[in-house]
């Protein structure tokens, strides 16, 4: 039996991961004041390409997908894909020491694979086992690795060295990659990725349009959204340190107005 080809890529991928992590420095969360975007010129170029690619390919396909399939079918597809992510989520729950959430992940996988008919229905959410995500990018953050500079990846979109490392590592954490590879059906993991992308895009057609229409600088808005979203995911929804916001009310109360004028 020949070694699965995926194993041959492992060493190279680990090298890439190590060099990416070396880029990412030490601060843990991205809630600093700067845009953290030293590669902005390059990133904006990639973003322009991505927007063109989205308009020409991804969005039309996502719209077609949404038009062709009724919502229950699309929800079933999403649920199956979510269920297949369980092993990777579980591995990351455990590596972050989140044993309670690991229990939820196991419970969800068992319930949805059986009662949920192979994951088509998310019955687990109905009985209080609510869905959560985890990935190796978040695990690295929990372990204290910084995000590194903001990166706009071609096609894949907003990222940073930490999350890109996580993206690669999660492929190796996924038992399905090995199952597919051992059975010479590696293309199935590619199919899964493409379907996932189309499904995700089809769920954000109007809101991304609205965001683009109301943004003065869409690139900068997305950059901020991405970094805040990741921080929120890393903290599992706990309150992050909030910025100090001085009061600037120009009230009708003369005392206050004077205080404001003095800059207090």
């Amino acid at each position, binding site marked *: 039996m020949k070694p699965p080809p995926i194993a041959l890529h492992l060493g190279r991928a680990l090298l890439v991961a190590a060099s990416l992590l070396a880029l990412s420095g030490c601060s843990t969360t991205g809630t600093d004041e700067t845009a953290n975007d030293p590669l902005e010129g390059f990133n904006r170029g990639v973003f322009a390409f991505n927007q063109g690619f989205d308009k020409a390919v991804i969005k039309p396909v996502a719209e077609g997908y949404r038009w062709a399939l009724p919502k229950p079918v699309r929800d079933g597809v999403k649920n199956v894909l979510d269920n297949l992510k369980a092993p990777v989520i579980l591995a990351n729950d455990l590596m972050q020491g989140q044993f309670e959430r690991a229990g939820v992940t196991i419970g969800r996988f068992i319930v949805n694979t059986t009662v949920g008919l192979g994951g088509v229905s998310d019955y687990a959410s109905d009985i209080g086992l609510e869905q959560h995500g985890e990935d190796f990018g978040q695990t690295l953050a929990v372990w204290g690795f910084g995000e590194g500079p903001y990166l706009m990846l071609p096609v894949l979109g907003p990222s940073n060295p930490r999350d890109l490392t996580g993206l690669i590592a999660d492929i190796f954490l996924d038992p399905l990659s090995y199952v597919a590879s051992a059975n010479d059906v590696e293309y199935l993991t590619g199919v899964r990725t493409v379907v996932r992308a189309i499904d995700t895009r089809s769920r954000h057609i109007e809101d991304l349009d609205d965001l683009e229409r109301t943004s003065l600088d869409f690139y900068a808005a997305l950059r901020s959204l991405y970094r805040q979203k990741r921080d929120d995911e890393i903290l599992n929804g706990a309150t*992050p340190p909030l910025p100090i916001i001085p009061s600037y009310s120009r009230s009708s109360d003369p005392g206050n107005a004077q205080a404001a004028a003095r800059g207090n």
Partner: protein
Amino acid sequence: MLAFSQPAIAAPTASAFVSELSEQAIAELRRTAMADTEREDRFRRLFLQSFDVDTIARFVIGRHWRTATPVQQQRYQRVFPEYVVKVLSKLAPVYSGETIEILQEQPIEPDGDVLVRARLRRTDVALARIDFRVRETAQGPRIIDLVVGGISLLTTQRAEFDSIVGREGVGGLIASMERMLP
């Protein structure tokens, strides 16, 4: 969790303020068929009465306030509320039976604000987390920031403004805000 159930607190709490406001917002936005201008008018009323607009305006322009000329400062303060109303009424989804369930109050050190943590629900489904940062001002409690699913309106707006000022200056920022308005 229990901060607002303690009998010792006599003044209306931040969560009472938020729940009153969300009831009012639901009542105002409930009507299904509504022209865009009517919707904007309602958003404007809600926004001006319940948000600390001046504080928000100054925070999101950040350090660039000091580099603006007095004329630019005035133009900015005039256009900012209108711009926010426009954006909010465009981005907020059309109301379809959602309710806001308040979960807990959390003090924010050191400035004495209160974070009211809540959840947007549609019947039994939890749609999103919404946190309201509330400050007690001379006019009563006012919202300083909305954090939806971990994304702060203020932080996002500040990042966007900072980027535009960096590329086009304060004048460019004001001009592009004014372009969004009729």
